[in-house]
């Protein structure tokens, strides 16, 4: 039994199986990435873990506790922090208020994950100079980082990051990869990243799972995955073999 166990998880939308009998185990303190083409069910998987959607079949167990029948609020209290693909922050609050907000919960988690001080969070996410600006005034990249900052201040036991570099420039993407690596390294936080961008994944340099049609196709490190013909075909179509 691992820290986070997902066992034969299935979720349908009408006739479409967005997540299809998926199994996944995540160790405590690990950094793991899931890649796959658009529409392969990555975001649905995260929605199932954090309670935005209920699974049709299957179980999700975090540290021995079943999450699949909990509400989103309970799952968050149990230590699941989730970043959305489109940055979801509070526009009318300042950066500081945004970061402070997740700590205001009266009933703290049953048991908490690694925590960071506000100073550390501001340094990691490079937001110190924007402390007193409103969320709505930030650039797209800064909003993405602010949402990561908010999740750190939630001190969750598992951090789910859904395409954290969507809409970022190349240099921002690289900085984000470094940010995630240091979050994982400094505090031994458990991080699960969904990504589309293989350059970013290469820089993350972590164990990978490839997702296709709602299920895991391959697992391995970056180089193994990179050279797998099945994965290439999935990503680039049949012509993908031309540059192998």
């Amino acid at each position: 039994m691992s820290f986070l166990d997902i066992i034969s998880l299935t979720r349908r939308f009408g006739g479409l199986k967005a997540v299809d009998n998926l199994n996944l185990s995540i160790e405590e303190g690990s950094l793991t990435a899931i890649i796959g083409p658009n529409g392969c069910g990555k975001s649905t998987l995260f929605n199932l873990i954090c309670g935005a959607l209920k699974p049709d079949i299957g179980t999700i167990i975090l540290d021995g506790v079943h999450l699949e029948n909990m509400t989103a609020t309970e799952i968050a209290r149990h230590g699941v922090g989730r970043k959305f693909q489109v940055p979801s922050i509070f526009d009318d609050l300042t950066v500081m208020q945004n970061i402070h907000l997740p700590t205001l919960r009266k009933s703290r988690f049953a048991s908490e994950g690694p925590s960071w001080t506000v100073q550390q969070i501001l340094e990691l996410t490079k937001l110190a100079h924007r402390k007193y600006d409103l969320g709505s005034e930030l650039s797209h990249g800064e909003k993405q980082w602010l949402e990561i900052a908010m999740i750190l201040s939630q001190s969750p036991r598992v951090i789910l990051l859904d395409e954290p570099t969507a809409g970022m420039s190349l240099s921002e993407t690289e900085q984000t990869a470094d940010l995630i690596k240091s979050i994982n390294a400094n505090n031994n936080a458990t991080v699960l990243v969904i990504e589309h961008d293989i350059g970013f994944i290469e820089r993350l340099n972590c164990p990978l799972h490839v997702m296709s049609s709602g299920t895991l196709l391959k697992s391995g490190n970056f180089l193994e995955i990179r050279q797998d013909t099945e994965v290439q075909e999935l990503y680039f179509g049949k012509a993908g073999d031309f540059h192998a």
Partner: protein
Amino acid sequence: MLEIKNLVSGYGEATVLKELNCTIAPGGVSAIMGRNGMGKTTLLKTIMGLVRAQSGEIFFNAVPIHSLPTHQIAHKKLGYVPQGREVFDKLTVLENLRLSALGSSKENLQLLPQIYEWFPVLQERSSQKAGTLSGGQQQMLAIARTLIGRPEIILLDEPSEGIQPSIVHEIATRLKKIALSTGLTILLVEQNVDMVMTMADHIHFMENGEIRETVGKEELRNSDEKLRTYLSV
């Protein structure tokens, strides 16, 4: 045919397209490739007027279209197949097609036999609700729906998304055939290399809201490096 000059566009205060320039010649298939979030979808939406250009100009057949409302842009014979297909799932297949004719000209309904010839499955299912079709069939419907408006150019946004590879290939070859036989111009936004290689004559690489480079298909076939740079693959 389609000429884009110094286009700046984005959502609210965020700028996605930064002084983008691009020319699409009539006939043939041009593809735009690039990583997620580099502004490909925004470009198509800006051309269609769904996202307002902050500055810059877009000409179609030498007519400026960047300040027209979306439906008038469509009337200039630009067809658009959005990402995620967006068929009307509560309407039947036939109603979906009819709707497009109502938006352009009712006479375009005469094109129906031709459409059915290209996509026989749509005729079989003409009275079914579009929501009951498979992903690939919905994609064909979305394309057929656009074709019935007799566009001169169609903008395709990630037609391969969420569709099985074999069907992607089938759609790609059929579209290529249609383009060749009718002289239709296609602007394709894709990440699926197979689809691009099957269809496209030119490939534009996009990064950070700009077109960085344009290459021919043969050139791309011989250079792994380009895909590496622009798609990070």
